[in-house]
């Protein structure tokens, strides 16, 4: 009798769980004394793989790509990492869709766990992650610049190279120590070059001058903005940096 009851309860639990279907899911994460409003878009990609993006209102996160999306019915797990910790949000959602269509479970971040509850509100609208564009041939290669911060001079070498998925870039900053900064995002729009390193929280926005053969711009890291002008260094490399 006890075994039968256990089987019935187990069966009921399975019946109450539902499979996740593509869609937009909206709801809240209830962390202590603060409610985070969350919008999650989940869709099937070109193959069978799931893709997704997330917006967290109030945390400056809009359309960040989801990663590690695993559907093992009835459990659904997905993660988001906006930048490497401790700067960026690194969180995981573990949940289930119940018979009423609610996706609910636990939100895990920085070792803390809180419940979340999301409701399907419509079709998915997954935001595509920013893609690198190619850069003009005349921008490819090595550039040299320097700036001063808190009385210390830093020398910067910038490498730009086109690859099949757009351009790649790396900065090497030599001051008291040498720091290599691979750029996550490289875009060129007209004369404007934009570089971003999420890990370092660093960005560079510059304008290429055809006459001067310089890239004049601003290097930003957190609260700091410093003028940085790149001059032509070595000849363009054929290999990616």
């Amino acid at each position, binding site marked *: 009798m006890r075994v039968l009851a256990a089987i019935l309860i187990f069966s009921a639990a399975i019946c109450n769980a539902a499979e996740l279907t593509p869609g937009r899911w909206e709801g809240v994460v209830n*962390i*202590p*004394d*603060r409610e985070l409003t969350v919008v999650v878009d989940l869709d099937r990609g070109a193959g069978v793989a799931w893709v997704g993006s997330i917006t967290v209102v*109030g*945390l*400056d996160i809009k359309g960040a790509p989801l990663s590690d999306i695993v559907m093992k019915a009835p459990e659904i797990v997905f993660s988001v990492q*906006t930048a490497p*910790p*401790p*700067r*960026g*949000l*690194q969180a995981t959602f573990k949940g289930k869709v119940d018979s009423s269509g609610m996706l609910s479970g636990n939100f895990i*971040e*920085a*070792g*803390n766990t*809180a419940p979340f509850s999301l409701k399907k509100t419509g079709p998915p609208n997954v935001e595509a992650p920013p893609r690198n564009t190619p850069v003009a041939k005349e921008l490819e290669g090595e550039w040299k610049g320097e700036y001063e*911060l*808190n009385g210390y001079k830093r020398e910067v070498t910038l490498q730009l190279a086109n690859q099949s998925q757009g351009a790649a870039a790396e900065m090497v900053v030599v001051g008291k120590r040498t720091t290599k900064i691979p750029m996550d995002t490289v875009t060129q729009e007209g004369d404007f070059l934009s570089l971003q390193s999420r890990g370092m929280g660093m960005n560079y926005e510059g304008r290429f001058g055809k006459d001067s053969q310089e890239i004049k711009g601003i290097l930003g890291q*957190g*609260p*700091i903005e*410093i003028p940085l002008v790149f001059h032509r260094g070595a000849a363009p490399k054929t290999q990616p940096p």
Partner: protein
Amino acid sequence: MRSALIGIVFLCATHFAPGQSMFRGDPAHTGVYAGIAPRQFHRINWKFTTDDRVFSSPVASGKVLYFAGDDGNVYAVDTDNGRQLWKHATGGPAPSTPAVEGRTVYVCSYDGRLYALNAQSGALKWKFVTGGERRFEAKGIHGLQPKNQTIADQFDVFLSSPVVIQGTVYFGSGDGNLYAVDANSGEPRWKFQTGDVVHSSPAYADGALYFGSWDSRFYAVDAVTGKEKWRFQAGEDPLIHNQVGFQSSAAVINGVVYVGCRDSNLYALDAATGKEKWRFNNEGSWVITSPAVKDGKVFFATSDSSLYRVVDAATGKSLLREDTKAYVFSSPAIAGDVVVYGVLNGTLQARDVNTGALLWEYQTEASKANKGWVLTSERKFNGPLVFHSPWREAATVAVDRQFNIGAIFSSPLIINGIVYFTSTDGCLYALE
């Protein structure tokens, strides 16, 4: 005989026994207290609750503790049972540590006044009006937006704590002055103008006052005349005003001034000349704590790098380095072989003076509650959930959240093995 008497008087004026009646224990601000501190945490003896956050450190005279709160009140509390003896309202938040001398309690308030209160009854004796209080401020401070907007520094949390010497009260003010006021009458004796807000507390040694200003200069001023003896220029940061200014109060021992600076250095300066003896750089991390000095070692802690550090007093060479997990603004207090300090994550940490080993920790209930997940499960600040935007009031809200988890800014007071401290949860604690 006369020379012997002069010698005795001089010794009394320059070498203070460990005290408990003013910020950092004594006028030289050594941060060293008589007796011992607990090597194990046993219990909370009592907890006294106020109406708002508390940044002021407790001081004691006899069996009475004195401190002030952001609720604007100055409190007198029985050391034995935490019973309130009296309170006196000031006209603004009072994140200033009182000084007790004789039968008078002196304390600063954000209403721009220095109060002198009867230590037994709390009755007002007099109040002295300064040019007004304000916080340090700068355009685009810490990179906040809009960068051409003048913004008050959220981390300028303390007011100056008075020091009382030979009938004169000395304290700093948001109007940029260091004031000398007659302790009995409240009549001004002199004032010394600096280039910006003075919220550090003057230390006294050998007839001079030593203090830093938010103008990033450190001053030595004659205690009698108010004339400048020397000044020392620390770091400047015209870009984002982050690595600039003295918030730490100095300790003066054996002719050397030890003081932390927001330019991330701990300095050792010659007390007679102001000449730099050494500096210890903390790589961008503020030194807000007022150093404690004992047995040839300097004890302090840092903000962003969240480190408890011990350096050699003679050379500045690093001796110990321990992770505190979160920013430290609280100044370390030493009693016996134990050093105690508070952390902004809401924990009080006690370490062995010699080894740096963590002996015990106490975590406030507000810290355990971790509202808004200000802390990670390891009690570090949870960056993405706290500081997510430099725009408009986001930084103010972030700092407010950060301060709302029972953070401990106060410098602990240690008497007879009992540790007294305050927290932004609004409480004064007695632990043993």
